[in-house]
């Protein structure tokens, strides 16, 4: 197993930033998540939040860090401990998406510009398994990795003032779902009936960093059925354990 040469930096008086080499890389990401899980396992009480991205962990404390160097030493020794079993389970989630042009308002433009048929775009977009790298930008916005390279498409020069909640977009090499109505510059190819952020739930966002996602195409009728199930609270997410 690779261990990386990590950099540890103070980030203000309340946080420590740990960085891996600056790359979007599955092995690096796996190591980030392993370290994050070890920190969770250590049950350090003063932690408020541990936020990971592709290649970094930011550890936020609830009060000023008295001695940053001894804190960094403590973190370094946690990194060295061997990965032990932990209770953190990661899932692969099936996310229904309706790619009908009623929602996929930029499908024609992508298809024309790339000379790929709309059916083929849908096939390639729903054929991949995506890594959930982290959640940011908006509550419940998943940063996904794994978009088919042939679908990379530059974001719009001028962002739309309103992109509807649930819209699925492609922005450059990234793809993702808008968890709420928002301004946005991504090219919209479909819509999901799923709620990515249920603010009143104990766990408002079902997915977490380290999970995976598959998009499952559904038709307009099924989309409407699923949406009413979601609204009634009777929809059950399909998921599969991936690190059993």
């Amino acid at each position, binding site marked *: 197993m690779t261990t990386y040469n990590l950099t540890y930096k103070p980030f203000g*008086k309340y946080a420590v930033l740990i960085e891996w080499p600056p790359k979007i890389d599955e092995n690096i990401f796996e190591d980030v998540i392993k370290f994050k899980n070890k920190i969770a396992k250590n049950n350090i009480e003063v932690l*408020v939040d541990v*936020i990971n*991205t*592709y290649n970094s962990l930011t550890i*936020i404390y609830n009060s000023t860090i008295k001695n940053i160097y001894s804190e960094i030493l403590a973190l370094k020794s946690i990194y060295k401990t061997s990965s032990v079993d932990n209770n953190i389970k990661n899932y692969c989630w099936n996310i229904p998406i309706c790619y009908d042009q009623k929602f996929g308002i930029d499908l024609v433009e992508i298809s024309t510009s790339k000379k790929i048929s709309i059916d083929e775009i849908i096939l390639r977009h729903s054929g991949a398994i995506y890594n959930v790298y982290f959640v940011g*930008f*908006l509550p419940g916005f998943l940063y996904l990795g794994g978009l088919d390279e042939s679908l990379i498409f530059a974001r719009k020069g001028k962002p739309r003032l309103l992109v509807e909640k649930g819209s699925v977009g492609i922005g450059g090499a990234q793809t993702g779902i808008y968890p709420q109505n928002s301004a946005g510059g991504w090219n919209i190819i479909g819509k999901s009936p799923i709620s990515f952020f249920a603010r009143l739930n104990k766990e408002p966002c079902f997915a977490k960093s380290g999970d995976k996602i598959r998009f499952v195409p559904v038709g307009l009728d099924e989309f409407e059925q699923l949406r009413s199930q979601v609204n009634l609270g009777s929809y059950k997410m399909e998921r599969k354990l991936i690190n059993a």
Partner: protein
Amino acid sequence: MLKVISSGFYTTIQDLGRFGYGDIGVPVSGAMDLYSAKLGNHILGNNHADAVIEITLSKFSCLFENQIIICVSGANLSPKLNGKMIALNTAINIDKGTILTFDKPVYGVRSYLAVKGGFKTQKVLNSRSFFREITDQFVIQKNDILPFEKFSSTIKKPFSSVKINKEHFNSKIIEVYKGPEFELLSKEQQEKLANTEFIISKDNSRMGYRLEELIPNDFQSMLTSAVLPGTVQLTPSGELIVLMRDCQVTGGYPRILQLSDIAINILAQKTTKNTFKFKVISI
């Protein structure tokens, strides 16, 4: 409870913020000037985490429908009870039917109205701090009813005001630590950063303050990473953005500076066209 007569320019409910949800993209929020918000609660003998009203530079006014004890702290926006000026940073008895108004700013930008026991508005993810798509409401509106618990005792007069340090409102020095990407800056850029008197642009809000003066740079874009309230980002166009309490949890611009706790509070009391200098201090 309290009934809002005039919402003012931008008025919200705030407490210390929402912690532990950063990894699902939820901002921290909380009172912009935490020092002043805590002071108000402290004077009333409240818990520091009790919710207060944050009033921004404006003509907020309200009617108290119950007897209560209040304290106004932070900016001096000429608070008046039934038309009569009141002292800041002082516990004040309020009778049922009293009208409290805020008017012209004398100093500062954000004023805090605390009530004995705190406001009991909706709590979502362990905080009452307003935030779009988290709380039902993200800004206080005319005719809103803001609940607080009944409290029938009064404080004995005379009650003296807590003296506050005027530097909190007048200081033009914003203390900062070096941020994670500080080392990207050349000697010249560092000097420019230290010697420039920065003007706050009109684009300033609870999410962040953009500054007018530029620091030209040719930094490569970086991979998205975590940001915190008080993080200073440098954009490719040379613009500096000081992130504030409602900032997103991640960002992709180099984080060249990080404001101290006190500096965030001091900056929260400044607005468009106000000026300041950064002073880099060691951790």
